[in-house]
């Protein structure tokens, strides 16, 4: 049984269907990439999975229970965390307060303090800037903060939306190193990316999304080798 299993998911904005009935599975411990062009419906899919949007149809099962249409503030308590597109850090809260927001659902203070140290260990830059308001951070630092904040909830399933967006190559590399190390800790990850090469190199499996539908799904190496993917997403 998959940790996350999506069947026939449809999401619409007003009358316009952005996601048109997709199936998707993520096994526990896997890192799965969902790639596709801008506007393919990737972010909409993640938002629906995280409870930010109500699906128009279909079912979402997570850890053996039906979570279709469950609101995000409940899902996080079951271990589903989303790092939203554009990071969504609280610009007027300090770095440390942002991280504490990530642990909002938890009450185990000593363990929260431990996890805070862990995040600071992972991102020493955040430690340096812990008293600064998050709005003053660079884009890369904000992305670190958003990921660190999501980790503070101790998620079982981490949904990452475009972590590389708008970042310098060095920073992208750093972020992906962190994604690897999070995956190595046993956190299941569904990664949405426009940077198909990076995403497929990190993932074990991948889905390709086009205009609201999944058009390809295979192991990451197979997708990387597929002429269709190479032509459309790797610029060959």
């Amino acid at each position, binding site marked *: 049984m998959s940790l996350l299993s999506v069947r026939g998911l449809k999401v619409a904005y007003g009358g316009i269907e952005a996601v048109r009935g997709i199936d998707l599975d993520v096994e526990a411990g896997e890192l799965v990439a969902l790639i596709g062009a801008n506007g393919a419906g990737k972010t909409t899919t993640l938002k629906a999975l995280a409870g930010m949007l109500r699906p128009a149809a279909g079912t979402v099962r997570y850890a053996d229970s039906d979570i279709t249409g469950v609101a*995000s503030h409940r899902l996080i308590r079951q271990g589903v965390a989303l790092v939203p597109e554009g990071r969504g850090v609280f610009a007027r809260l300090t770095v440390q307060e942002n991280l504490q927001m990530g642990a909002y*659902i938890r009450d185990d203070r000593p363990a929260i303090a431990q996890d805070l140290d862990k995040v600071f260990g992972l991102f020493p830059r955040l430690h340096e800037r812990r008293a600064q308001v998050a709005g003053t951070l660079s884009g890369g630092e904000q992305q670190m903060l958003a990921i660190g904040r999501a980790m503070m909830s101790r998620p079982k399933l981490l949904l990452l939306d475009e972590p590389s967006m708008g970042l310098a190559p060095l920073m992208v590399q750093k972020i992906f190193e962190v994604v690897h190390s999070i995956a190595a800790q046993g956190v299941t990850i569904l990664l949405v990316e426009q940077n198909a090469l990076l995403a497929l190199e990190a993932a074990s499996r991948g889905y390709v999304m086009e205009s609201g539908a999944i058009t390809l799904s295979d192991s990451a190496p197979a997708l990387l080798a597929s002429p269709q993917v190479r032509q459309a997403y790797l610029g060959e």
Partner: protein
Amino acid sequence: MDIFLQQIINGLTLGSVYAIVALGYTMVYGIVQLINFAHGEVVMIGAMVALWVISSLAGGAMPPVVIVLAGILCAIPVCMAVGYTMERVAYRPLRSAPRLAPLITAIGISIILQHVAMLVWSRNPLPFPQILANPIFEIAGATISAVQIAIIVLSLLMMGGLTLLVYRTKLGVAMRATSENPQVAGLMGIDINRVISMTFIIGAGLGAMAGVMVGTYYGQAHYTMGALLGLKAFCAAVLGGIGNLAGAMLGGMLLGVVEALGTGYIGEITDLCHVSGISTALAERCAEDGHMVVFGSNYQDVFAFIVLILVLVFRPSGLLGERVSDRA
């Protein structure tokens, strides 16, 4: 008597009340970007409920302080219930509607509450029972009454308490996060509906206290008393920077002082006899009466709106309203 000091004292008293009411506006605005124009009516209901309880109990065996306390303790939950209900019933269904819709609804709620209050408590100004001893103290040529001291002290305590709540508690953090980005706050596990309800409830609780204070200060309550008070407090919130808690406190206090000083000096400043030389007719009048005042202290209510206009023209974000860019 020192007019300047006296007006400062009066201004701080009134300003404390404005600040407490302005907090209700600014908290709600900070979280849902709605100017809750019905907030003044919540203040009025607070005054009315307290008045009703205090007059019913007055003359009994209870000591006056206990009676006033009972009035406050009844007014607060009633106002909280009103605040909660108006959000739940009127504003929540409109949360994703264009912003004009909840704004007009707020004005509607305000009218409804006023007229319900008129039906319940009559259309006449009601005397607010003055059962507490109100000794008057003299300082440096001005006077301050025990009620004034109580109003200022209680207001400062409430402001301090609210600041602690917002900056030191989990609910406060949730409120700040929700005000900045409700969707992401939801991702953190914050139940936004609960936070919004709590914001209305806390604001209404403060409004109840303001109602009791202003009723006690002026010695009367009327079903329309919330309208002008609410508008002035709204001006105070805008002056401080709407959505900003410290701004509401500062704006309230400043507005109170500006209003008091303006009222205290407008007669003297607009006395045409200062320039009696410009016309012989004027000089004659001045020789007779000594004064030819254009605007008297009955123009008291104009200052808040002059301040509002000046703020909107010269500093629309308010004194403390400098926001960090919301975008990354």
